[in-house]
């Protein structure tokens, strides 16, 4: 079953067509990697899928419903969560608080003015589970701003998971991580695979080909090829446009 269906999406900045009639479909349960050179429009695509940015035209359908006009909050509620290429966390809050705030977002009203939120066991327990899942259980009390870069990348993922998404949009989760940190994160994504549908944007080809069920290649705002990792590796157009320098 198709979970995400993008049709003829367009977004331009002046004369620059960053998303240029892009179509894409992601099946329920798959890990769909999107690769492409710097500036291809990958982050801009994620921004339009998550509702951060409105496309000029085209449609985004999620679980059968047209969500093109929904704001970010509604899309999160519908089951779409994302991580950011550039770490976007609450630096003054602890790791646990960062994740608990995401849990709170889907657990009843936030117009509560009296009960200490730090003592809401339901929020903390779920947040701890997410932290444990990404391997940050022993960092729960540390302010996000004081964490190492790799830990912040793990926390990004924990926050997104705390939204209990049906579809997780991951914008270069390995960006800037060292080999050991990357290994932890790749292991984590492998464990999540099958449990939650994922769109993974990543430059690390080894990770992409190890994890992805399907790969789409984005160049100049268009998907030029889409298929299994094996097929993409062999695709002559892809090799010419992109893999040429990197994989051969």
């Amino acid at each position, binding site marked *: 079953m198709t979970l995400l269906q993008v049709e003829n999406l367009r977004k331009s900045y002046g004369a620059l067509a960053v998303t240029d009639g892009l179509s894409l479909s992601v099946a329920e349960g798959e890990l769909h990697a999107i690769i492409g050179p710097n500036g291809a429009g990958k982050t801009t695509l994620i921004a339009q899928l998550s509702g951060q940015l409105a496309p000029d035209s085209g449609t985004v359908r999620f679980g059968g419903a047209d969500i093109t006009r929904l704001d970010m909050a509604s899309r999160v509620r519908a089951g779409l969560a994302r991580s950011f290429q550039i770490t976007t966390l609450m630096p003054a809050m602890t790791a646990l608080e960062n994740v608990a705030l*995401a849990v709170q977002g889907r657990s009843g009203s936030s117009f509560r003015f009296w009960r200490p939120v730090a003592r809401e066991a339901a929020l903390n327990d779920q947040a701890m589970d997410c932290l444990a899942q990404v391997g940050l259980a022993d960092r729960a009390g540390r302010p996000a701003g004081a964490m190492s870069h790799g830990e912040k990348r793990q926390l990004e993922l924990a926050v997104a998971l705390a939204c209990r998404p049906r579809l997780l949009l991951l914008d270069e989760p390995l960006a800037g991580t060292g080999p050991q940190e990357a290994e932890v994160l790749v292991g984590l994504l492998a464990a999540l695979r099958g449990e939650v549908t994922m769109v993974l944007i990543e430059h690390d080809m080894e990770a992409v080909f190890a994890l992805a069920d399907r790969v789409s290649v984005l160049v100049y705002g268009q998907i030029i090829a889409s298929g299994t990792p094996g097929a993409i590796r062999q695709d002559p157009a892809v090799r010419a446009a992109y893999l040429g320098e990197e994989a051969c």
Partner: protein
Amino acid sequence: MSAAPKAAIALLVLMALVPPLAAAIGDPFLTVIATRMAVFAIAALSLDLILGYGALVSFGHAAYLGLGAYAVAVCARHGITDLVVQMAAGAGAAAVFAAVSGAISLRTRGIYFIMITLAFGQMAYFFFVSLSAYGGDDGTSLAARSTLLGRDWLENDTAFFYVVLACLALAYGGLHRLVHARFGRVLIGTRESELRMRAIGYRPFRYRLAAYVISGMICAVAGVLLANQTEYVSPAYMAWTRSGELIVMLLLGGIGTLAGAMAGALVTVGLEELLAGWSEHWRLGFGLILLAVVLWSPAGLAGLVRRLLPGDRA
């Protein structure tokens, strides 16, 4: 208990000791100063909610002091002298003004937000300047202080001080609960990263607006008390310089900590009295002190205390 509530409670207790001290050394004016301190501490706390916890730099917050003060004058003119009713009226007017001005100004951020809140503050200011029935520019003096439970207890400076102090304690206690509750965490989240808040399903506007209204209502209560303290009501309470002074109190005390907001108000009012008695150029001295704080302890007095008490996260 962490250091912050302890510091706040210590401040409240110290203040409660002022009237007996004033009596002991035979200087009743001390109680009057302490009353002013407590009034401005309430106003500073209210501003800290939006500025310190929501990163909303309102440059029109004195308008709410004025709305509260004029609520006293208007109510008294119509024979309503009860303090609680006047507070409700002031807070109600503030809620309406905050809801309308907030709904507009909160669509902007940064410098634009500062300018729009300033513009709304000035609109309120000039509205009362043009209100000739209440003395226009000059304002109007009150015939008497408000009544409480039908009696004129507040005419006694000491009794009035304790009422103001009780209001301060309530404001502090209420805000302490609020910023540690779900609502407070969301508000802090919008301060830390609006984009991240949206990405986990929040719409920041509604929480900011709610905080803006709550903040205005609390500040109006301070305005009701300020009018009673001076027994005078004038547009000067809502001048933009007064809004600036409230921000200075937070800078001095430590933005984003309730105890710091209180301490900042106490120190500012105290220094004003002290330096003004010393020299008419006291503002120069005050400026130098502010400069020193900003340079050496950007987190204000609260930051200084935190540094002196290592290991305790306030």
